[in-house]
């Protein structure tokens, strides 16, 4: 992984304590995406985009435990994962704005992002075998790197996922699957998409599963820290199911979820849960950091050719 140096105002400093760092990073992702949606409103951006508002804790906790040689695979809802992995706000804003300075020179756009140790694609489930392939490459190279792939609950509909589960287990690949179950697939609730038992979907292939229903970054952190360590040491696959919730629309346009349901979840979103662990002053300082850093980045990005 190239040594991209993220802005400490967005990503934190080595000296920061964990609570502050996690708060800062979640705040960074949250505000990045809120500002992004605003840019769409202003008509600055074309296409569509999938924000992860409400799911920031997953990205931050998971990525905190990756090493430079590890490889993370994401999907359509990749901003949080990308930012938590790289800290590269400018690259992503510029990308979505279609600028040449974008991380994929504007070619990839919102869903198709690549950086050293990070890749996303817009075809649900299709990148899961790719992640397994990188895991095999890691194993062949006798490194102790791992490959992690994020999927959503809806993506459990895709056959490619099951083909991969079988092989990952059969061949003992250091593949870590992080399932973000936010209860919805675009406009479709889990119950209309999913039969059976989520945990068993993996256990049936022999994969060990951890599971947590939480938006608390520290609770998630504890689970994923153990899980990634397990994959790294044993060189075998593991699945982590994170039951969470998406607060924003599926993409730019409305996804017709019940308003009440969404509203209730704002009470337990990751920042609300985690913020009280910081004292007010520290929090405000971080908020101000993030705000000014992002505004600078946006200004910079907008001025780019």
């Amino acid at each position, binding site marked *: 992984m190239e040594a991209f140096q993220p802005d400490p105002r967005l990503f934190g400093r080595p000296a920061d304590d964990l609570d502050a760092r996690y708060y800062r990073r979640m705040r960074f992702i949250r505000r990045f995406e809120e500002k992004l949606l605003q840019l769409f409103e202003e008509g600055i*951006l*074309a*296409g*569509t985009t999938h924000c992860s508002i409400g799911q920031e804790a997953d990205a931050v906790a998971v990525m905190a435990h990756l090493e430079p040689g590890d490889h993370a695979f994401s999907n359509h809802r990749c901003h949080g994962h990308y930012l938590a992995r790289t800290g590269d706000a400018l690259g992503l804003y510029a*990308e*979505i*704005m*279609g*600028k040449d300075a*974008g991380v*994929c*020179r*504007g*070619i*990839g*756009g*919102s*869903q*198709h992002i690549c950086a050293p140790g990070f890749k996303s*694609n*817009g*075809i*649900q*489930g299709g990148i899961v075998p790719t992640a397994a392939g990188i895991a095999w490459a890691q194993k062949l190279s006798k490194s102790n790197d791992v490959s992690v792939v994020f999927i959503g609950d*809806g*993506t*459990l*509909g*895709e*056959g490619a996922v099951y083909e991969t589960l079988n092989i990952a287990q059969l061949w003992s690949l250091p593949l870590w699957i992080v399932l973000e179950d936010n209860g919805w*697939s*675009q*406009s*479709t609730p889990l119950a*209309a*998409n*999913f039969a059976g038992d989520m945990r068993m979907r993996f256990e049936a292939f022999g994969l060990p599963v951890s599971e947590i229903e939480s938006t608390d970054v520290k609770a998630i952190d504890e689970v994923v820290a153990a899980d990634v360590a397990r994959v790294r040491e044993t060189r075998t696959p593991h699945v982590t199911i994170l039951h969470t919730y998406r607060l924003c629309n599926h993409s730019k346009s409305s*996804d*017709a979820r019940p308003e009440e349901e969404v509203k209730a979840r704002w009470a337990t979103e990751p920042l609300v849960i985690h913020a009280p662990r910081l004292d007010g002053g520290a929090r405000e300082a971080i908020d101000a950091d993030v705000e000014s850093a992002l505004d600078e980045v946006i200004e910079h990005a907008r001025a780019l050719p």
Partner: protein
Amino acid sequence: MIYSRALNEALHRALGEDARVVVLGEDISDPYGGAFKVSRGLTTAFPDRVKTTPVSEQAIAGISAGLALGGYRPIAEVMFGDFLSLCFDQLLNHITKYHAMYAGQVTCPVMFRAPMGGHRGYGPTHSQSIEKHFLGIPHLRVVAASPYHEPYDAFADFLAKDDPVLFVEHKLLYPKHITAPTDGRVGELLASHAGSEGVLPSVCLSLVPREECALTIVAYGYEALLAASVVEKLGMEDELFCELVVPAQIAPVDFAPIDASVSATRRLLTVEEGTAGWSWGDRVAASIQRSHFGRLAKPVEVLASQPTVIPGARRLEQEMLVGAHHIEQKIREALS
């Protein structure tokens, strides 16, 4: 009426008139009604025969096959045409094979509706026109939505015959008004229907009678709309007269209307949004160079998009995908 609305009404009508019709696809339930809202109201009006599916394109295709073998007429919505790649095996090795492979004992009339096309900044995996890879699958009919054809006619054609159909809908047509020929005109252009018996008719558009046109253009889908605007402009401004032939069925090609036009103009340009190389126009060119050998004033020209990924950035996308300016340039070259 705008295209997506007409399409929605056509689906309502097909479901209402023909009890064999079943509609399935991802996220098509009300109130959402599908990613492009084309399926709005269907689950409410026909709860038994319209079902939202999990994110499982292979199964959507395969289940449709079973429904068709079982006497129903499934119309499957593929959320983005790009995902048809996941239906490819079902289409190639199952759906289009059953009838011939089983020596005519069964039919497998499945229709896939697939929103294709770019110009919206959706990026590499949500902007493609990948129909070219499905052209030439034996026993598959490919029909393209067009600004000059009522969508219901495509459904009626599907329901009247017994073959599988891929219906390609360019996303940019959804908000556009349908302007089927009325009183021999579409706006400023002379308009007529032409084609072989039993095939959805092509629409022929030109500013002046065919005999005065120096170039035939064939284009389908959204590119037909772009081509029409260029035909009109070049005729009005520069007295460069072309006839535009807009097929509904793009595979197998109904050559009759193209032949007739080229016989008069002796020049042909094909236009499509898919990437160049084994594209729709290559087949048209291969055939016309043969049937009109020695009678063409110029070689057949094939205009297609650049053979690379479709960039997310609009400025890059505009360079890469065939746009009106590319069409204009090609026409000018052909007539120079």
